[in-house]
């Protein structure tokens, strides 16, 4: 009986902590307490800002994969195992990250050098 109560309480503790933390972070993101300034802007080598499409696509892929995986977990949770992620999805996500990092490296490290050469 005691063990059952302890397990039940542990579940509630983790649920309240994770849920509470996620709710607070989401709330603070929405009301601006957590800084989101320039989230979708990149920085060039000379410090100027530009609207970054590579960040937008990474944001979309991140949210897409996150929602897809969570819904997959909700559907398959009775199996008692974490659902796997398909290779195609991982390749897509990896490609998205590569585009983001490639764009960032190009703009921060190379863009102005090439401008100067022209």
């Amino acid at each position: 009986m005691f063990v059952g109560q302890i397990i039940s309480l542990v579940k509630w503790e983790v649920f309240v902590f994770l849920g509470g933390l996620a709710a607070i972070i989401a709330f603070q993101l929405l009301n601006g307490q957590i800084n989101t300034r320039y989230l979708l802007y990149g920085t060039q080598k000379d410090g100027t800002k530009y609207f970054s499409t590579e960040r937008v696509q990474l944001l979309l892929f991140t949210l897409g994969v996150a929602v897809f995986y969570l819904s997959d977990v909700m559907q398959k949770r009775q199996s008692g195992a974490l659902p796997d992620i398909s290779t195609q999805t991982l390749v897509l996500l990896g490609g998205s990250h590569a585009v983001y990092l490639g764009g960032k490296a190009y703009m921060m490290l190379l863009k102005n050098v090439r401008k100067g050469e022209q």
Partner: protein
Amino acid sequence: MLLLLLLQATQSAPPPVSSAVINLAAWVALGFLGLMGIAILYYVFTGKIDLGGLISEPSGEASMSRFQLLIFTFVIAASFFLIVVTKSGFPDPIPQGVLVLLGISASSYLVSKGIQASSKQGLGPQDSSVTVKGSQTTTTLGGQTIQFQADVVGLSDETVTWTLDPATGRGTIDQTGLYTPPPATETEAHGKKVVIQAAAREDVSVKDTVTIELL
């Protein structure tokens, strides 16, 4: 004899722990973790633990690589928790796809930091500045207008707000930076100085001034 007793003591199984002690230990651990969780949530909620820079770079700008790492960490943690609650046990094994996903997310964050560390713009607050330029620093009452220009560096919004100090009695300035000295009839301004200030609209703390003497 002593050696024999010591040998027996080390080889024998530990005495059985009563279930009451186990339960007590579990409750103490549970209470401690619960209080820790509540304290952390309370401090985060009241701002004593400041999450303002949770996804920010040292330069103060929000970071996409930190944001995606935050999202995936929460998604996998929540999924893990859901499975544990449903199964009442740890999911075993953890699928390779999930590990690869976390690997992509974390290594992307690390590479992003590496790129930033390779560029001076990625380290620390950026040097932003406003520099006011004008053709002259003196004028006469009722004299010619003076066109000032403000060069903004390091900010995305390059517009500025022009103001005078004192605000009245020593001419006017419009929002294109065109300064008009007071008319010749305002003799009390003769020999005085007026400070022209351009402050960046994006960050009003970034500003520059020039002083004009009214002859």
